């Protein structure tokens, strides 16, 4: 059907800039978009400059032996092995403590607890706790865990026994028990990341559709079976991502550990375990490691950066590069876990 020529077609131009008001609005829109783009790329640029500067400064020291040597007063020999092992043990125990407590609390708050006054207070304050500076947790850890460890070490006849939180006692010869040990550090770091772990787990549990819970209960499953077989598996990608990201935050924490009295200068790896093979071949040392003194990657970096000798700048920069690589690796694991686990779960 043809439109008759005589039909009144209003004269509208679609050519840009034909209307002054529209031109102004378009301009404003472009300015806004430009501002946002600037906000993004300016911070990115600063980050890139920092990274390049650090990698540039690390030239001269960053080499394979930097991660196989322990610390030394000689900048050409100083390495991060003790810090790497210290951080490894810290993170291992931090995860062991924070995952059951964090996920358990989240399950309680989201799935089990009735909506009571106390529960609401806890939920609101979790966000506040996540914002508490880590040095405050360091003081708390010093007061609670370090003092308990000191009390235990006296109780367990000082220098000749290992007591693991009073539960059992293993007699070994000449193994001193320190109050500034890995377990105390890990318990303190657990306090630092626990609010984040709980919040991430709560978020993941909330994203599980309630129809799954109802359907499971309707099939005669108990609440425990419903949580364990349906809700937690469905929330696992979110929970594990949250846990891994919180853990990577704990790796970078120096303040609470310094507060606890972690060693700033040492060439000893916890339990004297300086290679992965010894994890399998030296069981008594493995048992001793959690109760040994330690240093950690950020502490070593802090120590080197304070060193007045100019050669230590390269050592500190190398330490930062290694720490960043470890963090990047952990965050990549989190991304991979999230990708594969969420591909399986489509609602």
């Amino acid at each position, binding site marked *: 059907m043809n439109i008759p020529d005589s039909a009144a077609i209003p004269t509208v131009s679609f050519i840009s800039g034909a209307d002054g008001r529209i031109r102004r609005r378009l301009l404003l829109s472009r300015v806004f978009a430009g501002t946002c783009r600037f906000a993004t790329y300016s911070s990115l640029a600063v980050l890139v400059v920092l990274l390049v500067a650090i990698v540039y400064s690390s030239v001269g020291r960053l080499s394979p032996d930097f991660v196989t040597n322990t610390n030394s007063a000689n900048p050409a020999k100083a390495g991060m092995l003790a810090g790497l092992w210290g951080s490894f043990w810290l993170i291992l125990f931090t995860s062991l403590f924070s995952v059951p407590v964090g996920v358990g609390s989240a399950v309680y708050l989201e799935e089990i607890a009735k909506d009571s006054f106390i529960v609401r207070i806890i939920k609101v304050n979790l966000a506040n706790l996540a914002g508490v500076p880590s040095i405050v947790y360091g003081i708390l850890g010093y007061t609670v865990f370090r003092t308990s460890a000191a009390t235990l070490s006296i109780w367990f006849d000082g220098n000749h026994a290992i007591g693991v939180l009073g539960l059992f006692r293993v007699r070994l010869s000449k193994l001193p028990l320190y109050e500034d040990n890995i377990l105390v550090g890990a318990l303190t770091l657990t306090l630092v990341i626990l609010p984040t772990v709980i919040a991430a787990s709560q978020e993941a549990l909330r994203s599980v559709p309630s129809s799954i819970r*109802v359907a*499971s*209960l309707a099939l005669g499953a108990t609440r425990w079976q419903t949580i364990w077989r349906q809700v937690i598996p469905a929330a696992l990608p979110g929970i594990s991502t949250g846990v891994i990201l919180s853990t990577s935050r704990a790796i970078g924490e120096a303040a609470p550990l310094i507060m606890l009295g972690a060693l700033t200068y040492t060439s000893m790896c916890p339990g004297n375990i300086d290679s992965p093979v010894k994890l399998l071949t030296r069981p008594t040392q493995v048992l001793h490691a959690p109760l040994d003194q330690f240093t950690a990657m950020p502490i070593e970096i802090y120590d080197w950066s304070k060193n007045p000798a100019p050669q230590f700048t390269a050592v500190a920069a190398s330490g930062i590069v290694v720490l960043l690589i470890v963090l990047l690796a952990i965050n990549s694991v989190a991304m991979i876990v999230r990708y594969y686990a969420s591909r399986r779960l489509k609602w």
Partner: protein
Amino acid sequence: MASITQTKSVPPSVTGVDRDLDMSAHPAAIQVRGLDFFYGELKVLFNVSLTVPERSVTALIGPSGCGKSTFLRTLNRMNDLIEGARCVGEILVEGQNIMDSAVDVVLLRKHVGMVFQKSTPFPKSIFDNVAYGPRVAGEKNRSVLADLVESCLKKAALWEEVKDRLTTSAMSLSGGQQQRLCIARTLATNPHIILMDEPASALDPASTDRIENLIGELCANYTIVIVTHNMQQASRVSHQTAFFYKGILEETGPTSKIFTSPSKKATQDYITGRFG
């Protein structure tokens, strides 16, 4: 034009249920007496009394918000999950008062299964979905589970479509298949009574058709209570119809009577589409 009139009538493939079923010979599976239900201060069911005969289909109809779904959920105490929900009265399931505090809701729900409006397959394999009920009840024997899964999928008329891909995710099934999977999953707990909350309202006509046929087959062995918004569906699949209006059970009777000569004006108005 001819096609339009055809869709209005009952599709020839739907056989419906045996309308001449003599329910008086069937003992009562569920007896509800004087049930009042509250959500906090809000009263949503008023003095509801209803008897559901064994091995038959009872349809609950009524406009939105009339309390029919709430009533259905009281029958296996799914309302326990809602905070502030409480009810007064008596619900006898096979002679036992299920509102008694000594009743184990887990045992009750195995006996009184439920199928929901939205199909809710678990994000697991087809096999694991059907085997979930027996597994949570403690069945671990692989061959027992395999036999059970097969027989339940056959009863739910899904076996032929999925027998070669039992290990694939249930999420890959179509909406109608998912709903039949949910029915198979419910059958696997070996219930006597199956509650269905608008089981076909989210499905296309062909899938609805299959679900309705399935209900017709299942009622030979199971007692079925179904909530539906679809009048034709109620008249096709049920032996007994209960009409709810504003929380009151207005009228109950054999489906043929409710749909041809209801005794109350509200029922008449609702089934002829004057409201609701």
